[in-house]
């Protein structure tokens, strides 16, 4: 086996070609927090919480571990003052959207993120794309998708598809880091609301 050797948090780690840093770390039992990652789905890199520091030929840079492929000789640090600071900031921004999100509370505590730092703009969705991607990649139903862009981007169920597929599935609900509230809410709206 042509293993790739790299160092994660001071430990020598052997990984296979094509693995991501996140996978290599997890294989070794090294924990990196994630929000938008799911084992059954293609890497997405939306939430940035899995950010780590890598040192390559003497240079340090920040990369997103769930999409960054392993390389021979990399030195990876999954925690540092800088990383903690960045994760705290990311969490505070996400908390402005979903202040009570269950999936964010533990992380917020760990990184000392203040849910009140930024003015709240509760949209509940943190755009992790888990629901959208799960429906497309695993269920192949495409009942839910993103619409619009920038600050107006949101998830939206396609009423015709949802009416057929969602009632007996709802597998995306527990995936949502913001407690499926948004998913449930938008689903109901898609049925009762104005049809586009």
């Amino acid at each position: 086996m042509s293993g790739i050797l790299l160092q994660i948090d001071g430990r020598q780690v052997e990984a296979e070609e094509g693995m991501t840093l996140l996978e290599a770390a997890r294989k070794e039992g090294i924990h990196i927090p994630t929000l938008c990652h799911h084992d059954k789905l293609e890497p997405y890199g939306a939430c940035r919480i899995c950010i780590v520091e890598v040192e390559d030929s003497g240079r340090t840079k920040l990369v997103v571990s769930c999409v960054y492929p392993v390389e021979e000789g990399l030195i990876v640090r999954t925690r540092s003052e800088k990383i903690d600071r960045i994760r705290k900031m990311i969490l505070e921004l996400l908390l402005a959207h979903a202040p009570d999100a269950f999936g964010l509370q533990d992380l917020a505590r760990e990184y000392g993120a203040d849910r009140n730092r930024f003015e709240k703009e509760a949209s509940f969705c943190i755009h992790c794309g888990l629901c959208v991607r799960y429906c497309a990649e695993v269920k192949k139903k495409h009942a839910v998708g993103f619409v619009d862009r920038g600050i107006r981007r949101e998830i939206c169920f396609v009423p015709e598809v949802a009416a057929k597929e969602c009632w007996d599935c709802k597998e995306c609900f527990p995936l949502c880091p913001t407690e499926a509230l948004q998913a449930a809410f938008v689903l109901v709206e898609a049925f009762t609301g104005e049809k586009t």
Partner: protein
Amino acid sequence: MDTEKIDRIIGKHDSEASSLIQVLLEIQSEYHWLPKEALERVSERLQVPLARIMHIATFYKAFSLVPKGRHEIHICMGTACHVRGAPRVLDAVQDLIGIKPGETDLDLKFSLETVNCLGCCALGPVVEIDGKTHGKMSPSDTAEVLKNYD
């Protein structure tokens, strides 16, 4: 909506999923919007999920999911046009046709949009109507030009 017309547009692009945006653009220019039935037909024929079509149709400003007017007015609000008086031109147009940017009048005659630079700053203030560029526009010039459309 005429399914045959939609099918013809789709057929022109060999029903290829990779031509999705081209197909949507043609439907947009034919109908001045993307009717839902058309999108459903495209989804079926190109084998692209409706959710993805909605994603694209809502992402690009060139597409509209509500009917647009027969004539599209774009008023440039870029810096150069702005300092040369574009806000006054915009006000005049709003008063004249009674709609705000992003809206369409009830007769489906005009749709109004602001844009952030049409790339010909020396001509500012610039007003573009149905793709035709009108430069150095004053509020009264604009009113004159709009009379030519029905």
